[in-house]
């Protein structure tokens, strides 16, 4: 248990996703701030415009969760891929811990990061919505919108373990003797995630149905991580 | 072959020959010829290994051999020194010379030379040198 905690701690500490190639230059901090401020001004401008128009509907805005699921999958895959990209896979895999422990640590780190990233995006969205609605003078509806948003956040965080597990499995397969199967599995994964997002966002499921699907997705996730562990253990290509 | 100066020693190794023998032979020679003064401290195993870029185990076994020869002595906590007894060096030198000559005689006999033949050859060599 402490091993897992230490692996998670050290993985969380490591922020670089892509190591800079020698010769490339990174964006100076000053310019990142300038562009960030510019984007903020544009968003604020749009929000003000929408608020003055006064006819904004925030029903479809939650569809962004659709894309978020794919992002979670790709990011989880990247967290495996980076060990090879940064040429640290040898250190990672020669650690005296089982493949299951190593992948479980990656899984939890992805989950923790995902909860944070989603929270930041939701908070930004809430501020945007609050501002627009305040300008529109729809103060009474604000509470309902926030509750709705909160529900979406919890629902999609509940689906993210599956997305993360699938991402890890796909990229482990990519680094194994089964690499030829990767494109097929990847397309299949995308279809499954699409169906999930479609079910939750457009089909009107009952609360019970949603809970059922989430429970099944968690059980499947366990199997997916077990499979990734087995492949990394027996068939990885270094 | 580059000679390295490590402390009071000057050694040069040829990596196509066993290293251990080279260290022993070169140090024996230097002590027998009196190039290294009696009672001098010689480099530690670590220093010599670093200086020559070789395995310390090799240096260690060479030092042990020299101690068996009676040419060096280890003083506890101080390091390894050339023996301060001249007679030990002399003993070793004559013993070694004896060995070299026996070896030489053996080889010459193998070639069919008698001791008289050998003496003649040596006489001629001596005249050449003069």
């Amino acid at each position, binding site marked *: 248990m402490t091993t897992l905690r230490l692996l998670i701690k050290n993985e969380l500490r490591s922020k670089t996703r892509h190591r800079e190639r020698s010769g490339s230059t990174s964006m100076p901090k000053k310019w990142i701030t300038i562009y960030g401020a510019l984007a903020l001004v544009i968003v604020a401008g749009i929000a003000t415009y929408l608020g003055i128009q006064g006819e904004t509907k925030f029903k479809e805005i939650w569809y962004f969760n659709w894309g978020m699921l794919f992002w979670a999958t790709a990011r989880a895959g990247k967290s495996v891929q980076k060990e090879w990209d*940064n040429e640290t896979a040898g250190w990672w895999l020669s650690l005296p811990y*089982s493949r299951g422990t190593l992948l479980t640590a990656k899984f939890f780190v992805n989950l923790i990061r995902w909860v944070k990233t989603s929270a930041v995006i939701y908070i930004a969205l809430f501020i945007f919505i609050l501002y627009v609605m305040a300008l529109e003078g729809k103060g009474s509806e604000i509470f309902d919108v926030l509750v709705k948003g909160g529900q979406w956040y919890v629902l999609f965080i509940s689906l993210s373990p599956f997305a993360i597990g699938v991402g890890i499995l796909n990229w482990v397969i990519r680094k194994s003797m089964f690499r030829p199967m990767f494109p097929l599995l990847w397309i299949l994964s995308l279809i499954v995630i699409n169906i999930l997002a479609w079910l939750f966002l457009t089909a009107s499921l009952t609360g019970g149905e949603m809970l059922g699907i989430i429970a099944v997705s968690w059980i499947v996730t366990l199997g997916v991580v077990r499979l990734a562990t087995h492949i990394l253990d027996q068939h990885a290509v270094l | 072959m580059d000679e390295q100066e490590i402390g009071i020693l000057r050694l040069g190794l040829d990596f196509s020959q066993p290293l*251990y023998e080279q260290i022993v032979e070169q140090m024996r020679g230097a002590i027998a010829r009196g190039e290294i003064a009696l009672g001098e401290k010689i480099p530690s195993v670590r220093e010599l290994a670093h200086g020559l870029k070789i395995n310390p185990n090799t240096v260690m076994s060479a030092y042990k051999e020299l101690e068996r020869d009676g040419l060096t002595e280890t003083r506890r906590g101080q390091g390894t020194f050339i023996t301060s007894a001249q007679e030990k060096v002399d003993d070793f030198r004559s013993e070694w010379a004896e060995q070299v000559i026996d070896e030489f005689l053996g080889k010459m006999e193998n070639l069919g030379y008698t001791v008289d033949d050998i003496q003649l050859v040596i006489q001629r060599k001596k005249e050449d040198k003069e």
Partner: protein
Amino acid sequence: MDVVVRCQDVKKTFGTRTALQDITVKIPSHQVVGILGPNGSGKSSLFRLILGLNQPDSGEISVLGRKPGWNNNHQIAYLPDRARWYGDHTVEGAFQWGMDLLPGFDASKANELADWMEIDKKMRVDGMSKGQEARLMLIMCLARNVPLIVLDEPFTGIDTPSRERIIDALIDRVTEREQTILISTHEIYEAEGLFDSVFFMNEGRVELSGPAEELRAKHGSMVELVGKMSHGGRGR
């Protein structure tokens, strides 16, 4: 002679490529052992089997008396082939990583080595030269109190001063403790005098092995031997 790695008829292929064929060796312990041979001769494949990163297709292998695998690796410090260190770590960060995750990692020893190898402890890895990074990675291995250290090509692509520092650190390691150090290299550089015994590999086979001094007496220097090997000769 104590044995640290024992291979019996070990074979390993990757698809159609044969990496190792019929390797039967006993690698002696408490020594500096050179695994020498040209690129692609199977040195790294052998090391990966020792670490349990890959499984042999057939044959038996035991390391420190056990079957290789993650649960044997707490006894082994391993420098992987062509590895880099985590770019966002500082030297201190790397040492913290070592203390957290590597059994037997001795932080005070690591600090000592860093001073001696002239590595600035506040420096970030992605700002390092290749030689500095190589020195750090070597410290991560040498600062561990484990019975076996496995270094895959520690001298490749490194400037001469760094290489000399690394060799000096290895010499000290041998002076201090009872460890077995396995070093693979395709170029001997200044490491010629370092080995107690050597194994010459070529095309997935061990073609010649023995105590370095005996091989020198019979065949000349390691550099000459590797030269002969890479040009198709058997060195015998």
